[in-house]
């Protein structure tokens, strides 16, 4: 399963941040790219608080998390991503607390020499954040506060990574 091993003590960063503050995506990506001269591809995923949920406008999302476990769980999946793909950098920033419509919730950025690894690792990390990272969303609207239900489609998406990753040629 571990087609690529991550050199320990290596300059390839695994930055994980949990914060209340909005995410400065540009600065985050620059940090990731600046580290290594072999970086040829950076993929970012930004999850954004939509202005409505199931057709009704929302006032805010409240993100609860399990401090300590959230960081540990994300770190385990970042290491798993490094083991699966030849990555040169990974950045995960997840907010908690009250988040307004249009604001960022989560940022995942992956850097690699070639694009396939960066895309696959970003998808992998997002699928795992959705289903395994201890965060819970509550929607605040005119009707009150309602906890968001987990989606079976998210479990299905996460399960596809249980099999060993397909071997791909390294096209940029």
């Amino acid at each position, binding site marked *: 399963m571990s087609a690529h091993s991550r050199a320990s003590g290596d300059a390839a960063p695994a930055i994980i941040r949990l914060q209340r503050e909005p995410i400065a995506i540009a600065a985050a990506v620059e940090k990731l790219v600046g580290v290594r001269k072999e970086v040829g591809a950076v993929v970012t995923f930004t999850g954004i608080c939509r202005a409505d949920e199931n057709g009704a406008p929302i006032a805010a999302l409240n993100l609860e998390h399990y401090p300590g476990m959230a960081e540990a769980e994300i770190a385990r999946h970042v290491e798993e991503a490094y083991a699966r793909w030849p990555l040169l950098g990974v950045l995960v920033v997840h907010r908690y607390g009250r988040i307004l419509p249009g604001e960022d919730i989560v940022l995942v950025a992956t850097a690699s020499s070639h694009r396939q690894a960066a895309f696959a690792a970003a998808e992998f990390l997002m699928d795992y*954040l959705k289903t395994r990272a*201890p965060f819970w969303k509550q929607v605040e609207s005119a009707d009150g506060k309602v906890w968001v239900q987990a989606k079976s489609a998210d479990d299905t998406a996460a399960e596809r990574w249980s099999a060993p990753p397909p071997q791909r040629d390294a096209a940029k």
Partner: protein
Amino acid sequence: MTSGSAGQSKKIKVRYFAWVRERIGKAEEEIEAPAAIATVAELMAWLADQGEHYAYAFENPKVIRAAIDRNHVQSEARIEGAGEIAFFPPMTGG
């Protein structure tokens, strides 16, 4: 919370999140469970017996996820040696 039935009991730090926390009305507590309680599933069943708030929180134990010392565990997991056990709904992060 009242301590468990007869015999040696064990003290465990328990944490609750999201609607599990809301239903129970607290984020964490130290419990004294009977020594006979060996697994996460048994602990959930015992907790469900500790009053109406607990019964409501654990009314459908199949949907409750658990972590021991910040690692996800299945309901069959043994709780012996656990420093902290957490109960919460399925995660909805990302």
